[in-house]
């Protein structure tokens, strides 16, 4: 009697969620994947007007100079940005869990940029910090007698965007590291301390090995964020695409919805869909690879 009631309840409660999931998530994913194999001009074009193109969209994209530049941009962001941001986040996490005073205050301050809207942050970085005349960085440089730097010039614009983005993300990853470190039993450190281990040895022989799972999570989260990198690229080149700030999703946005300044750019939703599929595949691949690497390191904490 009781078991039957439970099944009914399970079905009743799950159905709305499943319907919503299928409608809002599964259907668009399947439709987009299918779209990527057709020549489609606009998002709302009826299916009867689609023409089959095989892997043509993918080939065209890899032949496109701008797409390759955008992939190179996210590769640099992922690799260089990832290493720097995760290293700094780990450093902060280790410091904050080592018993300093005002731990909560520092944690809040470092996490604060993550709370503020990306648009507000990006605008502040671009218009205030990086301004060539009265910006924060150039004022500091001038104070120490240096020459003002062209933060938003060609080539440097990319690194400026990366710095601004990384600055905000350090706090987020730091929190994940902190939660990982706090799960490590304090006995290990005490035992090591008795044996005469110093801070660095404790870090490399206890903390780091036991954080493998957390490091994997952080890498996947970072990859997801970089694959979907859009807002900052849009903010640092507000009107049209630029070699320094274009990312695949920025390019996809322009392909699907057209350029915001010129009304003559051709819209190519099929290619946009192909980019979306590729970004999803990227995240899946990184996720699988990192899982395989850390699979046999399950440690009972």
């Amino acid at each position: 009697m009781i078991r039957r009631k439970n099944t009914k309840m399970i079905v009743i409660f799950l159905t709305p969620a499943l319907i919503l999931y299928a409608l809002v998530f599964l259907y668009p994913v399947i439709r987009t994947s299918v779209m990527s194999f057709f020549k489609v001009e606009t998002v709302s074009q009826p299916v009867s007007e689609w023409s089959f193109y095989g892997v043509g969209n993918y080939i065209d994209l890899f032949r496109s100079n701008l797409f390759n530049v955008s992939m190179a941009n996210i590769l640099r962001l992922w690799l260089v940005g990832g290493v720097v941001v995760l290293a700094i986040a780990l450093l902060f996490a280790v410091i904050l869990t080592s018993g300093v005073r005002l731990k909560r205050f520092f944690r809040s301050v470092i996490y604060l940029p993550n709370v503020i809207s990306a648009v507000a942050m990006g605008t502040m970085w671009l218009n205030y910090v990086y301004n060539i005349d009265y910006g924060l960085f150039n004022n500091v440089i001038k104070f120490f007698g240096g020459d003002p730097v062209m933060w938003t010039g060609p080539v440097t614009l990319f690194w400026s965007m990366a710095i601004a983005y990384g600055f905000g993300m350090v706090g987020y990853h730091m929190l994940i590291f902190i939660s990982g470190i706090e799960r490590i039993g304090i006995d290990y450190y005490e035992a090591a301390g008795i044996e005469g281990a110093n801070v660095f040895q404790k870090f490399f022989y206890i903390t780091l090995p036991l954080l493998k799972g957390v490091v994997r999570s952080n890498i996947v989260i970072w990859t997801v964020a970089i694959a979907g990198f859009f807002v900052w690229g849009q903010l640092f080149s507000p009107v049209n695409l630029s070699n320094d700030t274009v990312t695949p999703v920025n390019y996809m946005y322009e392909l699907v919805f057209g350029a915001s300044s010129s009304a003559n750019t051709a819209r190519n939703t099929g290619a946009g869909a192909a980019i979306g599929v590729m970004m999803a595949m990227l995240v899946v691949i990184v996720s699988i690879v990192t899982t395989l690497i850390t699979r046999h390191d399950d440690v009972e904490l």
Partner: protein
Amino acid sequence: MKKSMRVLSMFIVLLMALTACNSGGTPAPAPTPAPTAGDASQAEASPAAEDSGIEPGAQLVYWTMWNEAEPQGQVIAEAAEAFEKATGVKMDVNFNGRDIRKTLEPALAAGEEIDLFDEDVDRVINNWGAYLLPLDDLVNASYDDTNGQPYRSVVSKTLMDLAEQLGGGSIQQIPYQPFIFTVMYNKDLFDNAGITSSPKTWDEFLDVCAKLKESGVDAITVDDAYMAALFGYTLDRIVGAEKCAEMVANLDFSDPGVLKACELWENMVNEGYLSTKAATNVWPAGQVDEFAKSTVAMYLNGTWLPNEIKEQTPGFNWGSFAWPAIESTGDGIEAHNYGGQSYGINKNTKYPNAAFAFVRWMTVGEYDQKLADESMGVPMANDATWPVQLAEAKEVFDNSSIRLAWAANMEDDPEVNTVIKDGLSKLVTGAYNAQQFADSLAALKK
């Protein structure tokens, strides 16, 4: 029993809530073709049909690209209210903002009841051409509010011709808020430098730049957003509009004119006429930090600029002149990009006469002038007055017989645009010379 009844009723309530959300988006039933045919014969039967042509019980759903807070949005809101009072046509105005570029097409495709919409004149025909009602009959008819003249004759000829050309020989949209993309300059700085007339050739332009530099200001600047236009206009004056379009369509920049254009700008950089900030200006830095602050005298932009930087430029003395001619093989000072926003009437509308009556309401008479005044924009009606800031722009407009595409086609392909932006800013920083810039363009392949 009781428990499962409660759970079941909660589930039913949830389902009802979900369907309620859905019903908001239920598409309107597709109207039969009969009304359109009927209205066309109505228009033909009474070519002098004044307001009696407005369908009784008409209601208009109008999707506009303006935000309610913008001056244009405010005037439209006022005009719609006044129109409703004057004609009894119920107005439902939807202030989409620029999001309309993404939301209009799906709405039209789903059959949503939209009678009238507006956007850039190129976009209306390129993106939504399939939904437009041909307006030739309505446009050639005479009305009370056009003083018994055919509508077409009382509004800007340049723009109506453009609409006809874009519609492939048929007028499918009514332009309004026209603009022209030309050199906007600071008259006070010009007077200061002792410049008495605007340059017509590149040599005269260089003289003007030299005088400005002597007087202590930068001659010209550019934002990253408009680099393609600056380069495109230069290229157009060297090889002509058709060649520019071909170059971008075929991604073939091997023409020696490209190197010439790069050399001209390298020269501008070396002489110090182009502001060094051109390398770092992220829009709107160039127009707000440099031009509005009067540290730069010239800026190649659209006639919307006085309105756009209205807050930063009180008492600014505005002037405009045509982009100078360079070579005889290129276009001269009669070639510019001009256009405007425009009204499109949905071909499935039940009330085409009411919709066109509203278009007349906005483009002729009181509200046309009001729109021009409040937004420092250009009016459509021939007897309306242009804002004083655009007085010189009117001359350029009236003398523009060749219409360039936006940025002389240089923004048609983002591959071209990004290479130009890169190249021009690297010219300014010295990372590129003219040959390297030209090579980066020649490297583009289909």
